[in-house]
């Protein structure tokens, strides 16, 4: 098998590759858009959205990616690939500078420096990968491919010339003397005596004419005076672009972009780890039950982190024959959050990445479908129901065999009985199509009658003011009065005040310890 891409072992037909994809609907429903934003932040200068908007084509491809990501999580592999990315960005920058300068000397200089960065990137990557213990098919293929690539004669010639010129330029030093509007220039080096006096040997001097890429009139004057007497190096620079007008291999350029898919996620993962938010690699053993321990909503965890609040994790297991969870419970009790975390679990597993849980075993799904009620919608009654159904219909028509389905508060405006009937039909349909999923609802009866459906409830802590625990447990939905939390007003009666001050004096006692 030949190396083509680190995302798609088989490549991709060109039409599909060129099509610009929209953000999938479930991104917003599951708050993956928020998570993605943070991942994208880890790949400045690249647009990785297209890579994240599309699931792998097949189970094969999913595994191909998971293997690669597992390799990339080794720091030495990450560093090697990351360094390649940096070099390639320097190359891109040099190429971008080329059209901004006018003189052919400068144009050629930028071109030569881009060629140097390109060759250096390839060489370093090849040497780096050769010394690494790689497990993934994808990176092994890449390693073999690079070993072939550098043997191509065109590439060899380019590399020799670019490296040679680079070392000439690095060795090339000028001495400039300025006095009384008289500028003298020659080749050579000086010890930097005044810098030593200032103690600034370690500080970089800004280039004096850095505000423009073009040579300043003074630079031009100095260089041309110098070149008249010492033409060698500057002439060599100017010739490079004529000798090597084009360079580079499409597969290498593609590799650079696709690498960001993994590198950004791994950086994001480390950042999460710094925040105390742990992501782990999911198992994908179909012979065992699908389950997770300490699963949490990653988007919520990030939002809470900035406010210093923890998230409540949940465990779940789909026993054999269980296809759907139907979740009941109080408002603001963590139902939707739980549903989102399940969706995130499936999404990141499918992409080959780590998941927001302590431990998880996830089955293969062909797709991820979500239907969240649009709360901001002003529509009610018929209108809202219409709107809901119009979004539901394509989901149910789609080739939904073995998809993961998340439904959140469907049919809230329909009559209670109608809602139950329609809900049951929807469940029947998806179960019939071999789907698995979660259905969040206010309708307590919904979970009752259908086979392969398990009821769960968002739990309260049993106290008088019905504090939410945000725990979702297997439980038959019950009728509980969810009275509003009592609004406590402070009072200055002796009892209240003593109570307040007692808490305060205990606090200070604690702080003294």
């Amino acid at each position, binding site marked *: 098998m030949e190396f083509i891409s680190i995302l798609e072992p088989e490549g991709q037909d060109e039409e599909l590759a060129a099509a610009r994809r929209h953000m999938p609907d479930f991104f917003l429903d599951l708050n993956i858009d928020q998570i993605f934003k943070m991942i994208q932040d880890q790949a400045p200068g690249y647009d990785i959205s297209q890579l994240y908007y599309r699931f792998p084509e097949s189970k094969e491809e999913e595994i191909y990616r998971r293997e690669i990501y597992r390799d990339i999580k080794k720091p030495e592999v990450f560093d090697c690939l990351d360094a390649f990315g940096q070099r390639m960005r320097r190359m891109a920058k040099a190429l971008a500078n080329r059209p901004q*300068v006018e*003189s052919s000397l*400068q144009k050629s*200089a*930028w071109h030569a420096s881009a060629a140097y960065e390109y060759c250096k990137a390839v060489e370093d990557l090849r040497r780096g990968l050769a010394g690494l213990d790689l497990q993934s098919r994808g990176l092994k293929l890449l390693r073999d491919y690079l070993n072939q690539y550098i043997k191509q004669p065109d590439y060899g010639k380019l590399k020799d010339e670019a490296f040679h010129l680079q070392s000439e330029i690095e060795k*090339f*030093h*000028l*001495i*400039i*003397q*300025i*006095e*009384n*509007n*008289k*500028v*003298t*220039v*020659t080749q*050579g080096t*000086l*010890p*930097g*005596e*005044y*810098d030593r006096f*200032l*103690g*600034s040997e370690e*500080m*970089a*001097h*800004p*280039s*004096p*004419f*850095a505000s423009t*890429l073009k040579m*300043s*009139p*003074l*630079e031009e*004057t*100095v*260089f041309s*005076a110098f070149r008249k*007497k010492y033409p060698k*190096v500057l002439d060599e620079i100017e010739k490079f672009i004529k000798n090597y007008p084009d360079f580079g291999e499409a597969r290498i350029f593609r590799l650079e972009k696709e690498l960001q898919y993994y590198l950004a996620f791994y950086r994001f993962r480390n950042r999460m780890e710094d925040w105390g938010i742990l992501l782990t690699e999911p198992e994908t053993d179909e012979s065992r039950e699908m389950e997770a321990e300490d699963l949490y909503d990653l988007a919520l965890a990030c939002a809470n982190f900035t406010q210093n609040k923890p998230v409540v994790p949940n465990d779940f297991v789909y026993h054999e024959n269980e296809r759907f969870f139907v979740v009941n419970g109080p408002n603001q009790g963590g139902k939707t959050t739980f549903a989102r975390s399940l969706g995130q679990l499936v999404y990141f597993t499918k992409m080959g990445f780590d998941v927001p849980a302590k431990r998880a075993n996830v089955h293969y799904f062909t797709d991820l479908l979500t239907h969240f009620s649009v709360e901001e919608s002003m529509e009610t009654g018929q209108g809202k129901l219409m709107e809901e159904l119009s979004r539901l219909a394509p989901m149910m028509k789609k080739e939904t065999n073995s998809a993961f389905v998340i439904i959140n508060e469907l049919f809230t405006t329909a009559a209670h009985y109608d809602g139950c009937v329609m809900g049951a039909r929807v469940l029947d349909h998806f179960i019939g199509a071999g789907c698995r999923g979660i259905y969040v609802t206010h309708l307590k009866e919904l979970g009752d009658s259908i086979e392969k459906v398990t009821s769960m409830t968002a739990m309260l802590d049993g106290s008088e003011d019905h504090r939410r625990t945000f725990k979702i447990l297997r439980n038959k939905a019950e009728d509980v009065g969810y009275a509003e939390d009592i609004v406590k007003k402070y009072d*200055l*009666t*002796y009892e209240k*005040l*003593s109570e*307040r*001050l*007692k808490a*305060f*004096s205990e606090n200070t006692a604690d702080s*003294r310890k």
Partner: protein
Amino acid sequence: MNVHLLYTSREWKGVNEYFDSKSIVNDLGLENLFRAASRDQEREEGNIQTITDADEHLGNALRRVMTVPLRTPEEIYYRQDIMQDCFAHGQFIKELYAGARDVMTRWEKLGKKEMNKPGVREKSIHLVAEVKVLRLFVDSLSDLKKLCQSYQDRFQSRGLKQFCQEVVESFSDQWEEKLRTVLEDITFFSAGEEEYTLGGGDGKVRQAKIVLDCRVGSGVKLDDLRLDVVESVSKKYKRVKEKKTVMERFATTFAAEPTVILKDPILLEDLSQLEGQVVKFIMNVYRPFMNDCGDFFEELYMQAAFYRACFNLYVRSQNTKLEMCFPKVCDGDCLRFTDLMEYSMAIFRSSVPVGNTSGIDHKRLLIVTGANQGGKSTFLRSIGIAQVMLQCGMFVCAARFESGIFPDFFTHFTRREDSAMNSGRLDEELKRIDQIVRHLGESSMVLLNESFATTTEEEGSVIAYDVVRALVEAGVKVLTVTHLLSFAKKVYAQKRPEVAFLSAERKENGVRTFKMIPGEPELTSFGLDLYDRMIPGS
């Protein structure tokens, strides 16, 4: 470089005020002190003269320092010691402060505010100003060093000894010499700009002489510069250097090398840009030093102002013949004083008020009752003022004063105009009590002056009893002046050991002495006496 005149091991920036310092200032009438501290007062031929215009910075500095409590006896004595040195060497603190103020004024003129705005540094006009600021700092530090050297051995306080040592050591002669050399090397850049001219200012046009080594960077631009020579030379005069410059050593080599004489204005423009970059780089090298100096002078301006302000108050108090002492710190249960006076009023009136003497040991609650216009509020204020002054390391207006440290210090004064019965007012009052309760800490003192007077005496007494009881039980020290006699009587009847009672003295003939004496709260505040006096013969 550290100032550390207010704290043993930190600067002023970032300290925490009293929770409600605004009320403290208002209730205790501290504005009088701030105002008085802004002016110099000296005796001239027997007459007291206010000899300077008000320096508002002094009053502000005093306000800021007074509204931030110290937390340990060590911190308090540290300031007291420094202050004693300052009072003993008035000339020093005057010069120290004047020097700091001078730096700030000149620095402001050179565009201090602009200094850290983004983009400003790019402008060459600003670079010229920056060079001047460096010069200003060097000159000012040099003056400061001389001042410190001449006083250093005379000080007793750890704070001032350390300060002088720090200045002398951090700004060593060697360091000063080096900075002056650099400043002279770059005079070509700011030549013709008066204000500071080093080396006598010969008025000659200086030109730059620069030798540098560089690489041809990406895209054929000058890059990776290294400086070998930077000098300012005048056409007629050449600085004599002991060692040969690099150029002189290479002179023969260079003689035949490519040379351009710049005449085109565009090229000359480029040249001056290059020179500017060199100066900018040099200024960057000294930026940490300049930032450090900037912080140092800002802190010094603030910290010296506090002692300078106190010195003004001290002179004024001496002129009024007020007795002053440095208070002692004792534990929180004790409060002892001899001839304690209401300092703010004394300064305002330039007269010596009635002093009170009391020893209130092992008490958590003090209840002051008694005659109207008998000096109760004044008495409470005098304690409050002394407490605040103690907690910022100042002297107090008394022959002796000892108290604990209460960083969580609150005043709750009902002012006369507030005392109209009105449920809205009571709401507000209780809201403020609630605020206080929320911010109590482990060492809290609350001064209640005529609190809960915005309702009937019956209701007020119940609220006062509940609130005060809860506070005292939680370990808060409460000093209260009250008209609410049912409240006072009820507490008195319990004969609890942690409660002290004082009342404003009233002689048999109704004359008020403005002295507080131990005594049982009585059922009338003798308002009738006052009524009779104000409306005689009715």
